[in-house]
């Protein structure tokens, strides 16, 4: 008994790809193949018995190719295994149910996941599906009998090669709950049972198509293979259409870009298209949808806020020197170091002193909610348009952590794979419009936050030093917008000055860094 149990585990592990089939390596391999007609086990540990010879194809190179992983797992099940399939726990503390309908009878062939019967507990009708492949050998209840949870429901004579371990279920991909044609035929009247040849039925079954759903164009309404193929194409289109429509209808707020299974096209830079000589291009009407549409809504809401602006110029010369030192170190850790992480961290440090700038205003402007986390949003330009994902809890993160996360966010954004979590709960925003160009800007606040900063491009410009000499400075403009209903000019100015001082004297950040 123990030896057999070991074999079960062994064979099962092989099926999961954990270990190579031993017989591959064994010299007994040839004997194994010839001995396939005797499906009984011989040696417990040497190799699993291939009780289902069909599933092993010996390719030209002599390496066997596992057709069906399940087969190996239950190679230990002999042809005579009968297993009792128990009524498993339905949930909701239900101890017993009434059997209402059998979908199988003694002698019916079932596959794993085929419906076996319908049971009812107070108000719930539950479809019980088979855990095994095999043939029904006994029904333990009649219709209208009360079946207790945990008792045997049916006996199934396992098909050779049927997985006996319940964990074999894991190997099956999760599929939509499209009940096989077995169930659907029971809900159809006899008159509308679809006519189709066994070959067509097989194609339908393999593709999870319910024959009764397919319009048959053959004689007497027979369903032909072409009908099934056409149905599949339509169904695929229909599903995609439904999913697309659902994505498009995503309403106000920052719309999460739809995550499609297909690989998205890489972001193409717009190529300058020369006009054909003498041709006047026609007007093109393009309805606003997706992110653009969402932007219309957000921006309309945002401009209800009275913005006031505050701008300044920041001398980043010291920071530029610092970056030179840190750049190589960062690269050795696998990321590109830019100034943004430092700007973001400095903003967080400054927000510690001016928490009102990290607040949310509620809808009716009755409350100011001082947010505990500094979730600093960074405006990114994605192929779909402008989005502002945020880095959560900047106050707890190091510059390196921020750099890593920023890099990940930008990568996701480029692939249109930002998640709703990325886009939610921002408390403060920065826009690096300067990376494209520009100096001073007038950024628009993202409700319900109260402040936003736009960073201009870093320019090398001449300025006067302490002794009236001309100095080469790396200068960046910063433009802040704040909600004047709750933020006053002085607060914004002081915050900006503090942020500026951190950037102009990076070593100052060391003092306040947590």
């Amino acid at each position, binding site marked *: 008994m123990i030896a057999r149990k070991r074999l079960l585990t062994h064979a099962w592990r092989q099926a999961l790809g954990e270990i190579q089939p031993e017989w591959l390596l064994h010299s007994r391999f040839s004997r194994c193949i010839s001995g396939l007609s005797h499906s009984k086990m011989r040696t417990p540990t040497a190799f699993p018995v291939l009780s289902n010879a069909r599933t092993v194809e010996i390719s030209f190179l002599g390496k066997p190719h596992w057709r069906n992983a399940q087969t190996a797992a239950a190679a230990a099940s002999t042809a005579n295994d009968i297993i009792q399939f128990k009524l498993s726990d339905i949930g909701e503390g239900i101890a017993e149910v009434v059997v209402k309908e059998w979908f199988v009878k003694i002698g019916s062939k079932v596959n794993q996941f085929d419906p076996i019967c319908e049971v009812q507990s*107070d108000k*719930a009708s539950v479809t019980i599906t088979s855990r095994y492949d095999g043939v029904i050998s006994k029904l333990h209840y009649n219709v209208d009998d009360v079946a207790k949870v945990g008792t045997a429901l049916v006996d199934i004579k396992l098909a050779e090669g049927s997985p006996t371990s319940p964990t074999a279920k894991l190997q099956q991909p999760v599929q939509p709950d499209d009940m096989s044609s077995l169930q659907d035929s029971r809900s159809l009247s006899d008159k*509308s049972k679809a006519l189709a040849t066994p070959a067509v039925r097989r194609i339908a079954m393999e593709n999870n198509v319910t024959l009764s759903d397919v319009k048959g164009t053959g004689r007497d309404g027979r369903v032909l293979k072409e009908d099934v193929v056409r149905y599949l194409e339509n169904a695929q289109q229909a599903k995609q259409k439904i999913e697309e429509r*659902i994505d498009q209808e995503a309403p106000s707020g920052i719309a999460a870009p739809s995550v499609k299974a297909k690989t998205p096209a890489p972001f193409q830079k717009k190529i300058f298209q020369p006009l054909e000589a003498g041709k006047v291009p026609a007007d093109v009407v393009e309805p606003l949808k997706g992110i653009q549409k969402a932007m219309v809504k957000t921006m309309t809401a945002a401009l209800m806020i009275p913005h006031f602006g505050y701008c300044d110029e920041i001398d980043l010369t010291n920071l530029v020197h610092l970056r030179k030192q840190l750049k190589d170190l960062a690269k050795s850790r696998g990321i590109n170091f830019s100034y943004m992480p430092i700007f973001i961290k400095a903003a967080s440090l400054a927000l510690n002193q001016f928490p009102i700038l990290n607040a949310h205003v509620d809808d009716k402007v009755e409350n100011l909610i001082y947010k505990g986390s500094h979730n600093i949003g960074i405006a990114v330009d994605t192929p779909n348009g402008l989005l502002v994902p945020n880095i959560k809890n900047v106050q707890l993160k190091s510059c390196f952590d921020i750099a890593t996360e920023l890099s990940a966010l930008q990568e996701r954004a480029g692939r249109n794979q930002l998640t709703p979590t990325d886009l939610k709960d921002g408390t403060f925003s920065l826009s690096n419009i300067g990376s494209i160009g520009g100096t001073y800007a007038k950024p628009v606040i993202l409700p319900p936050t109260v402040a936003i900063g736009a960073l201009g491009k870093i320019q090398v410009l001449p300025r006067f030093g302490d002794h009236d000499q001309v100095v080469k400075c790396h200068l960046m403009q910063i433009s802040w917008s704040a909600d004047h209903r709750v933020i006053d000019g002085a607060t914004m100015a002081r915050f900006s000055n503090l942020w500026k001082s951190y950037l102009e004297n990076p070593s100052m950040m060391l003092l306040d860094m947590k």
Partner: protein
Amino acid sequence: MTKKWQVLISKSHDIYTNLAWEDWLYRKMDFSHLNLLLLWRNAPCVVVGRYQNPWKEVNVSMLEDAGVQLARRNSGGGTVYHDMGNLNFTFMTERKLYNRRTNLEFIVKVLREKYAIPAEVSQRDDIVVKGTLKISGTAAKLGRTAAYHHCTLLCNVRKDQLRAVLTPRNKGIHTNASISVPSPTVNLSEINSVITSADMIPVFAQQFSDLNLSEKIAVIEIDPSDGDYPGMEFAATDLASTSFIYGNTPKFNIIRDFVLPSSQDTPAPTNVILDILIEKGKICSFTISGTATEAVKGIATSALSAVVGCDFDSQEMWAALSAGFASSSATTSGTDRNSGDEHHREFVYRCLIQTLNLQE
């Protein structure tokens, strides 16, 4: 991948279309990344549970004249009446997330907060006010990977029609089919007069949307017959067919015991017991017993033989019965015909009519 939540509002008011649409979504969509709330209303109809007996639950004979359709749904539970004053909710998720109570608590919360209705979820997963007045009934269907819970909400239905339709005429039916538990009902509009089912749809859609904290969800109006659901039309036609609605009735017997008045042949009263077996909605077989004379039993036997194989309560059955009556009177020859026999024949036929009509 985060779960998508959606509210789908059906533009159709046809019970069969809506049931077929609900079933299509349940069978075809992958709920590992999807949570759905369907909101739908129907033109007057009465819906029985999957394994119920419509004749036991509903006054079937009055439906046609009243313009009320009859449907059988795929989930369990009892019989309900719908009209446009009733709002249906279907919460569809992956099997693991099936939770009736949570869904019902959501509805109760909205009723309390938005409409000041003192509703609560009862032990039996109904929604009640004042402890016993039912405003919602629940049913569910569970499969391997997906499950749905649907329930009604009585906003402003026609209570007179509800009562009439759900007062069955079912004398003599013996069945193991699940029976409905009747409860006194009340319309929400009787408690808060502003309530209409139409107005509640956007409110529930919005509140459901707010339940999902991570993103705003889509609220979409759908016309189920717009071709996006291949195969659904067949399913709807099937749901409307008599073979589905009546043919899925679990087997049942009609058993009646009639006392024959005493006559010349039989000074003491005798009785005849009729036991008719109906399976899949068709009259299958019958037995006749009791102390009545062989002559009387013979009349009953030949009459019932004429209807064996007919769909129960169909025009075909009634036609066969009256044809049987006509032919049996023709076969009795002049000499045998006496007022006693005639009397018996009439009596037997009246009993049969009463039996098959499920009348008192």
